[in-house]
């Protein structure tokens, strides 16, 4: 299990990286934390001809608070985000979810941007970004564009990144007053790919009515999925147990989960429903606390 040979570049600026990517395009692979890519290379499933290592691009490793929310560089280590008080305050859903991502040794190396760009359907971070309505900055030698998470994820390991583009920054909007959040997943063992997982971000107005909800799912489809029908069930109601149950049923209806050796499609669907029933009350509870405060 040794990787095949590759041409190796280690740029120190985004400009340099973008330039290299422009030159090598389809033949190149960006190396961020490498915690998914390198095992795939060790199995020789991935054999990129060119590897562009972003680990020395310091400008991609930052985390700061801005007017509208949190902005972080794509090379922010997952562990750094997990430990950051800023993330704890400004994106508590992300903070709550990160400990579910693999193991500390992996998170020490793994990056937020790497996980987003990898877009594994079973990964927690893409689903959370979708729930948080994050925006991503993509840069190529041709320029820069911002893409909302909803448009970014496009099916199985699919993203709207062009071959010459790099994901450079992630922007997470500041939670509105009355926001609540929760995450849960079921995995065979702690740190494994989830059999199913649910992230929820909800907003309650002063009267306890749900004014916004984003429920996202992982491991039940080709990519991270936004459960729009389920969110629709919540919005406009004062969410009761029955509403939550109806939302969970909507989650089950809206997915076509894959089967593998660990879980049948039916089991995954069932878990997505159960998890929604468990996650929403927690998110709503927090929203009530926040709206009351």
């Amino acid at each position, binding site marked *: 299990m040794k990787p095949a040979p590759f041409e190796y570049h280690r740029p120190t600026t985004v400009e340099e990286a973008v330039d290299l990517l422009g030159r090598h395009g389809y033949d190149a*692979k960006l190396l961020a934390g490498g915690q*998914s*890519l390198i095992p*795939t290379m060790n*199995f*020789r*499933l*991935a*054999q*990129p001809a060119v590897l562009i290592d972003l680990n020395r691009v310091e400008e991609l490793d930052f985390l700061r608070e801005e007017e509208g929310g949190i902005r972080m560089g794509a090379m922010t280590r997952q562990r750094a985000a997990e430990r950051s008080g800023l993330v704890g305050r400004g994106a508590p859903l992300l903070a709550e979810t990160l400990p579910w991502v693999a193991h500390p040794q992996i998170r020490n190396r793994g990056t937020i941007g790497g996980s987003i760009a*990898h*877009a*594994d*359907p*079973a990964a927690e971070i893409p689903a959370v970004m979708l729930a948080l309505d994050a925006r991503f900055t993509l840069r190529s030698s041709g320029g820069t564009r911002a893409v909302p998470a909803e448009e970014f994820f496009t*099916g*199985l*390991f699919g993203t709207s990144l062009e071959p010459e583009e790099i994901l450079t920054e992630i922007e997470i909007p500041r939670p509105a007053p009355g926001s609540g959040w929760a995450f849960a997943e079921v995995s065979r063992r702690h740190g494994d*790919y989830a059999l199913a997982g649910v992230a929820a971000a909800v907003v309650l107005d002063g009267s306890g009515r749900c004014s916004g909800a984003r429920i996202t799912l992982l491991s039940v489809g*080709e990519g991270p999925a936004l459960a729009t029908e389920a969110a629709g069930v919540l919005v406009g109601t004062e969410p009761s147990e029955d509403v939550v149950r109806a939302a969970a049923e909507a989650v089950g209806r809206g997915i076509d989960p*894959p*089967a*593998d*050796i*660990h879980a049948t499609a039916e089991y995954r669907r069932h878990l997505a429903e159960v998890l929604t029933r468990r996650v929403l009350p927690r998110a709503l509870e927090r929203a009530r606390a926040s709206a009351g405060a």
Partner: protein
Amino acid sequence: MIVEGEYTFSGPRDVVWELLQDPEVLSKAMPGAARLALVGDGAYEGSIRVGVGPVTAAEWKLAVTLQDRDPPAHYVMQVDSKGPIGFTRGSASVDLAETDGGCTLMRYRADLQVGGKVAGIGQRLIDQVAKMMTHRGLDALSNELRARLAEEA
């Protein structure tokens, strides 16, 4: 692994049938700049280029044989492929039925064996990749059908 489903083509059955025998059209329904050539009666050979996510796109050799042909209603497609990280063997049974409004309903059921490295490591994704490739292929065929019908019109 079983991949099965239904798909409706907005066009008459005999046109769909023809499309499904045309190597050029078939190669458009296959992933990654496929090449497919007719090498005998109902026998095709060629290659496709497949890569999913972090798995580097690579060339897979492909051999397709159509059997039990009952035009324009039924055939069985035997597909064998071999690539650097594994192989597939399998057959798909395809039934075409005319439906209201001049459409064609395709029912397919494929029994696929996946072998080699990709089977041992990629099991989590095989089901999804098969589904995705099927859906994309059928959509491509559907587009081709539309184009052909437009041409004829």
